[in-house]
């Protein structure tokens, strides 16, 4: 009689353990997936901040760089594309486009000492440099989060609980951002 009770107890114990393990993994997948969303939100905030600085920059630059209308138009257009971008992929591409256009403006600014000396321009440059590195750090955190998530759902036992969830794509640096800026004088 006694042994039956022990066996029953063991079975109940094993069931409880399995349930706890299931809960752990299901929650873990949820937590890591939320972290990716949060990491993306960080990137999004920075991309939006950068776009918001553009009108201010254009206003500051216009008075000095009279002959660079093309570069200025490029930035304005890149900003519009950024603001109208819908999903992650479009936003990443538009963000890279805007970054490249801004780099051109700052490279051209080297030819305008008065512009470079203006406080407003210097502030904007610092602000945009700061955003640039924040985007890079946010991307790093995003990719780290994606890595933990992908590791969890592709390795055993995590993959048993993933229910066929797809791996998250990494945030790759766009070609446009990697290429050096071309400036024609």
């Amino acid at each position, binding site marked *: 009689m006694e042994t039956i009770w022990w066996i029953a107890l063991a079975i109940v114990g094993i069931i409880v353990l399995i349930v706890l393990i299931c809960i752990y993994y299901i929650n873990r997948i949820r937590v890591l997936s939320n*972290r990716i969303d949060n*990491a993306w939100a*960080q990137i999004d905030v*920075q991309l939006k901040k950068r776009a918001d600085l553009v009108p201010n920059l254009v206003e500051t630059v216009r008075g000095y760089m009279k002959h660079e209308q093309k570069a200025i138009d490029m930035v304005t257009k890149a900003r519009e594309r950024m603001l109208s971008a819908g999903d992650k992929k479009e936003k990443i591409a538009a963000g890279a486009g805007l970054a490249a256009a801004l780099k051109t403006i700052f490279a051209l600014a080297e030819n305008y000492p008065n512009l470079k000396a203006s406080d407003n321009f210097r*502030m904007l440059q*610092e*602000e945009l*440099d*700061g*955003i640039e*590195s*924040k985007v*890079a*750090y*946010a991307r*790093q*955190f995003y990719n780290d*989060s994606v890595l*933990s998530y992908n590791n969890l759902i592709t390795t055993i036992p995590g993959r048993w609980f993933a229910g066929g969830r797809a791996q998250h794509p990494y945030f790759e640096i766009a070609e446009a951002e990697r290429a050096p800026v071309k400036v024609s004088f």
Partner: protein
Amino acid sequence: MQKISFLDQIAKNKRNSIFLTIFVVAFVAAIVYLIIRLLFPGLALIFLALALAIMISHAYISYNYGDRIILKAVHAKPADPVQHAYLINTVEGLSIAAGVPTPKVYVMEDDEINAFTCGKDPKHASITVTTGALKNLNRTELEGVVGHEMSHIANYDVRFMTLVAVLVGLIAILSYMLLRSYRFVREEEREKGIGLLIVVGFLLAIFAPIASRLVQAMISRRREYLADAGGAQLTRYPEGLASALEKIKNINQGKMKVSESISHLFISDPAHTALDDIFATHPPLTKRIEILRAM
């Protein structure tokens, strides 16, 4: 693997903070009890209760306002959004990289290159940088230093180190008081079997400051290596911090005017004292640079 050891560190720091607080509260209450036993033997128990009550509120205040006490003590001022835009941007960037809320940023007036962090948790943390650091470090070096501090914040070192700073300072003061109180004991009472108490009191008074300094040294050296590695992991550029430490080694005189009890908070020892030769709170800079360069 990296993530798991990080979580371990957080758990360990939270646990150590609780142990430290209980230990200091009990220790100080015991010292107060001894003092009262010597002076007014009849009132000892009442005073013990009183001392415990005061110590528990002291611990509560240390936990919640320790960072403000420290920031006030070193005259740190909030960073100016225009003048220190560069520093604020760096801190914001690295807090994003570490995935913690952005800490408050302070600047303290001092020619030496140094920085520290304090607060009870990542939500209530602050980073303070000296004006010397802002003047002498370039962007990657400043990022290295801020990355080191951010790693202290992310792994809850900041809670334990802040508590050590505020609680350990108190032990030194009380031990000193105990040593002085011996003089007020009446002649006839010295002979009435309290000799033993006096001996214990003396031993405590002499060894408590040394022991607290030893604790400070032990807890902080290993932490500095870990924070160096953690910071390098955030910036993905160990050379930035290595080069900042090199500048610290060459430029700093070790003459910052800050209290001993907070020296373990800083990225590099703010003031060189005689005790450092025995119980240095920081590992040697050359060793730290060497490790970073080997990463």
